[in-house]
Each structure stands twice: as structure tokens, then as C-alpha cells.
């Protein structure tokens, strides 16, 4: 089967996710952006953290252990807070947080709209413009 052209315009049914390869090429720093999702006091504690020091994170559902650095651990803990995604969160940040919470499982603008209570067309317009925001791109 032929691969769909990259030039195909995304639709309300196109699946998006966080493209971490975009972050590798980007001039933006993923760690700094992730820090911005934490409360200010936690952010201060983590400034200049040692990323080689690993913590055992225990999955609350399965008991599986994942070794994470301090930032990764803090993010894993914060996403369990029901207020992590709220109505005051900016749209791009809210979409990014949805993918942090769901383990980066691809979702369509329709699904994201339902999750966030925002119009799917607005989400599509945001994600399919000329500029890529925070690595949020269609799944290839």
C-alpha cells in the first residue's frame, strides 16, 4: 500500500501525538518545557537537578517499576492530579498534557476536543497551521 503523502492536509480524524524527534531537532529544550508544567515551588526544587540520578517509579495500576530522573518522576506524579488539565490551561499546553497523561497514545482533534471540552475545529486549526507547536504533529 502506498504511504499517504505528507502533504495531505490533516482533518478532524487525523491522529496527532507528541513527536519527540521534533524535540531532538528543535532549539527548544524539552526539559525546560516539561518544568513549566510543574507548580513554581517544585520547579525551584528541580532547577539544576542531576539527570543521572534515577528514581524507581511504581505504576499505580500494574506495580511495574520505571526508572525515571527527577523531572520525569515529578511529571509522572503531577499527571495523577485531577487538576493537571484545567480550564485555565492554554490550549497547546492542555493538548500536550493530554498526551502526557495518556502515555502519548495518538488522538484525533475530535477526540481531543471531547476530552478538553473545546471545539475540534479550533484544535485542528492550531495543530495543522504552518508552525509545529511543542512537537504536536500528526502520526506518520
Amino acid at each position: 500500500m502506498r504511504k499517504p503523502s505528507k502533504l495531505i492536509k490533516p482533518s478532524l480524524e487525523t491522529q496527532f501525538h507528541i513527536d519527540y524527534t521534533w524535540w531532538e531537532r528543535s532549539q527548544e529544550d524539552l526539559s525546560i518545557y516539561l518544568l513549566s508544567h510543574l507548580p513554581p515551588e517544585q520547579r525551584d526544587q528541580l532547577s539544576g537537578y542531576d539527570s543521572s540520578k534515577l528514581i524507581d517509579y511504581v505504576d499505580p495500576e500494574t506495580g511495574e517499576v520505571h526508572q525515571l530522573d527527577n523531572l520525569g518522576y515529578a511529571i509522572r506524579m503531577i499527571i495523577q492530579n485531577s487538576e493537571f488539565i484545567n480550564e485555565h490551561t492554554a490550549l497547546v499546553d492542555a493538548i500536550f498534557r493530554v498526551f502526557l497523561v495518556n502515555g502519548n497514545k495518538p488522538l484525533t482533534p475530535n477526540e481531543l476536543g471531547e476530552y478538553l471540552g473545546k471545539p475540534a475545529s479550533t484544535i485542528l486549526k492550531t495543530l495543522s497551521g504552518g508552525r509545529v507547536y511543542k512537537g504536536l504533529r500528526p502520526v506518520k
Partner: protein
Amino acid sequence: MPHHQMGRKLSIDDDDLDLIMSILLEQEKPLSTNELAEALIQNKLQQETALLENKFKDVVVYDPSRTYEIGQRLLFPALEYATAVIIDQREGNNLDLGTFDVIRVEFEDGGQNSPDIREFASNLSVAHKLNRDNDDDDLFAYPIETSSSKELLTESFIQMLKNFLQKAPELASVGEYWFLRDLILEVNIGHLNLAEASLALAGGVPLDTAHILSDIGSLGDSSLELQLFSLNYHLKHDRRFDEVGPAGQILWHLSEMQPNEVKQIPSELQYAKIEYDRALLSSEMLALEEEIADEYSPIDTQTEIDQDAATITLIYPHRRLGTFPLNQQTRQIFPKATTASRIWITLIDKQDGEEFSGWVVPAGRYVYGLERYYRKHRLPVGAYVSVARENDNPGRIIVSFEAYPARIEWIRLISIQNTHLSFKNEKRAIGANYDDLMIIGADDLERIDALHRRVQDEKRTLFAIMKEILPELGRLTPQGTVHAKTLYSAINILRRCPPGPILAILSANPEFQNMGGQYWKLTG
């Protein structure tokens, strides 16, 4: 709870045949396809359970609060009940959780839980969703949920088993029952002659196998089921006997005592299929075709079919032969058979309760046995005749018509002119409700029979018959027009034909002119 799909896609192989043979041997009696299917499924489920029990033997359900040792096997309820072996252990590192251990496990199910090697918490003091309240490590405190036998006993599995058993030379079948061919009891020529005498004495009424067995005496000490099966098997393979019971019931009859109209489809009822373009039929014509409901019309009615009663309008060949059509509606009323090519039934006159022997002949699409009934009530061609089941007994059918005190009415009467069919209006006493467009009276049946034979011998085409009959019928009305229904009823005196080809010829041929509604006349 552990749930496995293993039993859901059942196949049947030679091992199953061995099992079936041993079941039959053990039970010493024939079993039905359904019973064998059930036994087979039970056996497969037992095997499945044994496999699962083996898989989960010595397995401990994972609980993050417990401590484990290297080499122990764990079951992970949160990971679709995958199993894994502990291959390593270390101290956990997370100040929020206090002291705990981390076990490294290798999954056993080859890739479903990739990566195969993963780490899990153990000896965890903080509460976790997977903590278990009791110390019961018996896995089977979680019942193993396999597919239920009811869930697996599907029509398609039963049919698959039936196809498989039919190919097994070791087995013999009678109806829906199976037994080991080599162990069928001997039935000798003396037994068969006695069976023939028993049926002859019954006077044309079929008998069940138990009745015949009691007449000829037992076949030995074997179970009654095996004796009945063996007798059935030998009767089935002797051409003197014919199995005539409805599905699920074995009844025997003597072939030589069956009416010819049952053994062979009469030529008057045989339809030599005529190809035509159904697109020629207007919606009005299609509605007319559905209303007539001829047993040879390709109708797939959208209306709900009454399963308990149905009515037809009698046409000449059925009236002449004492048959009743099996169309889409009436077929639901009469019993069906799995193996028998004709089924014996009792027809009951609703008016006075008189009973007649009847025969359902599915291949000919008719029921035979109403000649006396039609004559007794002087039912004309075009009369409405109804059939209904008597309670839940599939072999007893009530026949009725809408009777009223006989009154003198003008009707079309068949009149043979040399080698052609003609009609005249005559007065006749009619005591049954009928379709005014289809009623036709007939006096000289033998001349009509002779003309029918002549038309067959001459291979007169439908078109030729229509051109011959239409003006003859037209002469009976001042307008000279003929309704398509009347034409259909009249054509069937000479040739069996459903309305479809007749309507297509009327529609396509310019020699026929539509005069409005479904009234037609010849042009010129």
C-alpha cells in the same frame, strides 16, 4: 479472572473421531449429532481446563506488598493474566515509598508483554491497587473462565460435525442419529418381510419404528435405542420402505402403497422454467404477482409471514389433481423433513372434522391429498382455500374455506372447441368465497386433460397460448378486455406457469394492448 480464547475456534480431526467412536461404544446406543457435538465440546473444554491448570501450576498471583524469591512464577492480573519468572531482585529507590524491593521478571508468553523482561515492585509498604486482602495464594480462588459448552454449541459447529461424520466410513446414520457401522444389529430378510406385512396391514398409514419392532419381535438383548436404530438402518436400505416422517420423527411407509402423484410430480404441476426480463414488470404487475403468490414466483415478500395460517387462490391444475401449492407462505405451515423426500400428514376438514391422508412433496412444491375435499365441497377454480396448524402438532393440518349457502352465479365455464380452449358464461351454484377474476368452471374434465396433453405434445409456446386464450376470454365481456389474473388462471389449464412470464410477454409484446389497470386485449 483468567480468561482464555482457546476453546472458541473449534476444529474437528481424527482424534475426535476416535473419541466419538469410544463414546458410542461406551454408551452402546446411537446418539444424535447434537448429543455428539455436546460430548465433543465437553471433552475439548476439559482438555482446555487441564492445559490452563498446568499453565498456572505453582503460579502465585502478583501482589506488590509481598516478598518473592528468584525462580518463583508470578501471574499478573493487571497484564491480562500473563505469567513470568523472577530472574533478579534489587533494592528499590524512592524516598516517597520507603523501603521496598524491585524484582526483575521474564514473561513466558513470548512477546505479548514486550519487552519480555520488566521490573515490578515487591515488599512495598505503601498501599497499592493490586494488594490482596487474604493470604490465599491458590490461583484457583480466581475461577478459570473458559468458553461455556452452550456458547460453543452453535449451528455451524453441529453442521461441521455432521459433514465430518458423513465422511467417516466407520459410522452409520439414520436421520440425525449415529452409531458404529460394525455394531449395528443384524436384521434378516424375515424381519424385513414381517415389517412389510406390518405396514401393509396398517392400510396406508405410516408406522413408527417402535410399532414395527413390536410387530416383528425384538432384535435381541441390546438397548431399545440400538434395536430401533438397527431396524431403521435396514429399512432405509430396502427399497420397499420409504421414510416419510417430518423432521425429528421417523415414520415408515410402503413405497408401493404411495400414490403416483406423490412418487412422481404430475406433468400438470411441472413448470418448465421460462427465462424473461423482470425489469419488464411494472410495480403494479409486481404487486399483482405478489398477490397471486404462485409457488413458482420468485417473490421475496417484505411483509411478515404468518407461521400459523395461510390462504391461497385455487388454480386449475391443483383443483384437478387435489393438490395444494407450497408457496412462501404456505410452506411455513406444513412440516419439513431433514432426509425424507415426501412427508405424510393428516389433513383435517375444518367444516366437519373428516380426516384425509396427505403428502407434502417439497420438490414438487405441493401437498397431495385434497381431491376428495375439493370435490366434497364443490370448490371451483378461483376459490380461497386456507390451511392452519392444529395446535403444535406439525403433522396435522386443518383445511378450510369460507362457506356460504350456495347461490346461483354467472361464471366462466371451460368449453373445448376442437383443439382449442374456449369459454362461455354459464350459471352455476357456488357455496364458497372466491376471486371473481380467477374463477373458472369445468365440466368435461377428460376433454380438458386430453387438450392439456395435446398442448404438451405440440410444444405450444406460452405466447401462442396467450394469443389463443385472450380473445376467447375477451368475448365474455362487452369491452372485450381480460384481466391479467384471469388470463393467468386460464393459461394454467393448459400449461403450468407463474404470472411473471405472462406479465412480461404482455408488457413487451405490441400485439397485446393495455386498456388500463391490468386489463388487456389483442391489437388489430
